[in-house]
């Protein structure tokens, strides 16, 4: 009962998807535009985020190392 129903559903879904695909052919090609918008400010945000992530990662690493040292000194 369920299997043929699944097939028809997927068929309809594919039809709809392909139809929308045809419809978009005449429009400008959609690309990953997010990073190119409004004077490419998103690129700067991404770069800064990466730098900040790096610094935070470094801080966390130092934090953990100090924690380990503290433990070792306690166990001595």
């Amino acid at each position, binding site marked *: 009962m369920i299997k043929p129903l699944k097939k028809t559903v997927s068929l309809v879904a594919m039809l709809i998807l392909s139809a929308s695909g045809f419809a978009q052919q005449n429009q400008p090609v959609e690309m990953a535009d997010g990073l190119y918008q409004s004077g490419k400010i*998103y690129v700067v945000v991404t770069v800064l985020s990466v730098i*900040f992530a790096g610094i935070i990662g470094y801080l966390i690493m130092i934090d953990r190392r100090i924690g380990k040292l*503290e433990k070792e*000194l306690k166990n001595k």
Partner: protein
Amino acid sequence: MKKNWWKLIAIVFVFYTIIAGFLFHVPAQPILHETIRNLYFHVPMWFAMMTILFVSLWNSIAYLSKSNIQSDILASQAANTGMLVGFLGLITGSIWARYTWGAWWVADTKLNGAAITILIYLAYFVLRGSIDEEQKRARIAAVYNIFAYVMLIVFLMILPRMNDSLHPGNGGNPGFNKYDLDSTMRMVFYPAVIGWILLAVWIFTLRVRLEKIKRKIVFND
């Protein structure tokens, strides 16, 4: 992780301000233009500095009342971290000034006051470095540190308000009203301040822990 929740807040808040600080709407102001966004990054440095130097002051007073060397470690490391954010504040302010006022440095009450404050605190480290005996160093440095914070209040808070200054928030105007801080800007600015303060505190605690480990290894105490 239970003890470290505030570090997570610091990370999340500063990350948020990096993203929102660039993308959220800001009021269009003459001269400032997009540099108004520097408010999210330059000003929190000073908030962080004043907070962390207050921690330093607090511990100096604690040392004078209890003579516990731990307080001296906290006070000196806090002052050190304060210098880090203070220098970042000076440098970022200088860059901002270059592109809005047209010069890297202006003989302005607020700017010179900030520079003098930094110099006063540098003298704190010179003073510490010149005394070998530990208790004596801690006591004299603590007394000097109280003087330094009073001078900080005079040079950063009082004198700029009594004189005309290019720097916003001065010349009789105590707040940020000149910036026309609208509600969107507040939504970014306040988390930025909290985030950077917490980040400075984090660096400060790392320094303190490292110093304590060093003392344990070197002096075995």
